[in-house]
């Protein structure tokens, strides 16, 4: 007869409990809960200039417009085209403002660079069981493809802080030197990767 204590030990392995790492979710919650959000805020502001550019080129694409509104968590917004708008000087210390490009087929793509590190271990924890985050490569380097819906991604800021960022759907993230590059505007991962590789 098997000892009852041993049977309880075995039961531990059989319980319907999650196996995936927990830290991704916990770190994201810490980021949301704590008042200290300077790093995330800096990124958001740096990205703001880029997003304005994205909005300007993507007004004709309702899905993209919706994604931009969602990304800021502000629901429905009305956006004016302001090609004269210069990003304020305070928005630039953390990454550049992004390059919006119109492809020959009329598609608008946006490339943004953020001073951060796409830590593979950390990113994997965020990926967890989420179906909409796909690991891929750009020119042999680690990359993440956010498929369809917006998703939280964990990154390391230059000061070592963990930053959880909400990234719009259909976005490719990869590391290039000391920056994380974000590419938006493609619906298909292979197209995004091909375009990303053409940049390098």
């Amino acid at each position, binding site marked *: 007869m098997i000892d*009852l*204590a041993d*049977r*309880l*030990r*075995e*039961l*531990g392995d*059989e*319980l*319907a*409990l*999650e196996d995936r*790492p*927990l*830290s*991704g*979710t*916990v*770190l994201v*919650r*810490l980021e949301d*809960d704590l008042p200290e959000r300077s790093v995330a805020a800096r990124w958001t502001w740096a990205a703001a200039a880029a997003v304005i550019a994205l909005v300007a080129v993507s007004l004709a694409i309702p899905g993209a417009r919706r994604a931009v509104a969602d990304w800021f968590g502000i629901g429905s917004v009305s956006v004016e085209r302001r090609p004269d708008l210069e990003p304020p000087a305070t928005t630039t210390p953390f990454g550049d403002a992004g390059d919006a490009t119109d492809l020959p087929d009329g598609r608008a793509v946006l490339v943004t660079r953020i001073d951060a590190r796409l*830590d593979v271990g*950390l990113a994997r*924890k965020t990926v967890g069981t989420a179906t909409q985050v796909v690991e891929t490569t750009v020119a042999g380097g680690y990359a993440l493809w956010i498929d369809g819906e917006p998703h939280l991604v964990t990154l*390391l800021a230059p000061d*070592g*802080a*963990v930053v959880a960022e909400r990234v719009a759907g259909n976005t490719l993230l990869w590391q290039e030197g000391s920056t994380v590059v974000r590419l938006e505007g493609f619906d298909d991962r292979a197209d995004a990767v091909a375009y990303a590789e053409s940049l390098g």
Partner: protein
Amino acid sequence: MDARSEVTAQDDAQLVARARSGDRAAFGELVDRHARAARRVAAVISNSTQEADDIVQDAMVKAYRSVGTYRGTGSPRSWLLRIVANEAKNHVRSRVRRRRRDDRQASLELRVDDAPDDRVLERFEHERLAVALAGLGAADRAVLGCRFVAGLSERDTAEVLGVAPGTVKSRTSRALERLRTRLEETT
């Protein structure tokens, strides 16, 4: 404490020290190291595999906020699991308050498993054991959950539950006895 767990405890202490100075990645590492035991402790104390993950998440967020209060008297692991155990107990209280003590949430479920034929009996035994365990009183479940389901030592179990090691020993044998009785009743 064996050599391996001593090394782990030292590493854990370093992670706690780094977490105290605001290194969240270090805290994340600590969380992942003990997630398995934490989920089991939470499940058995709350009597719910379904709610275990939420409980552990809440507990870990609280642990990070109170990492400055960790005094290093017990191991970081038992400090963390104690917060998990308390969160699970609070969770049960609030569930009772909310009158949502329904069977869907409060049960110890097993993994969905395409058990091969030779494992069907084993599976059935695990199910019986889970039901019997879930039917025990809270104190019995807490001690058996920590000691065996989560695989903690007597000393760690004592720290997690905030009782003397001798109490763990006596409670464990009484709880095992009651579990055995329940199992025999359902045979």
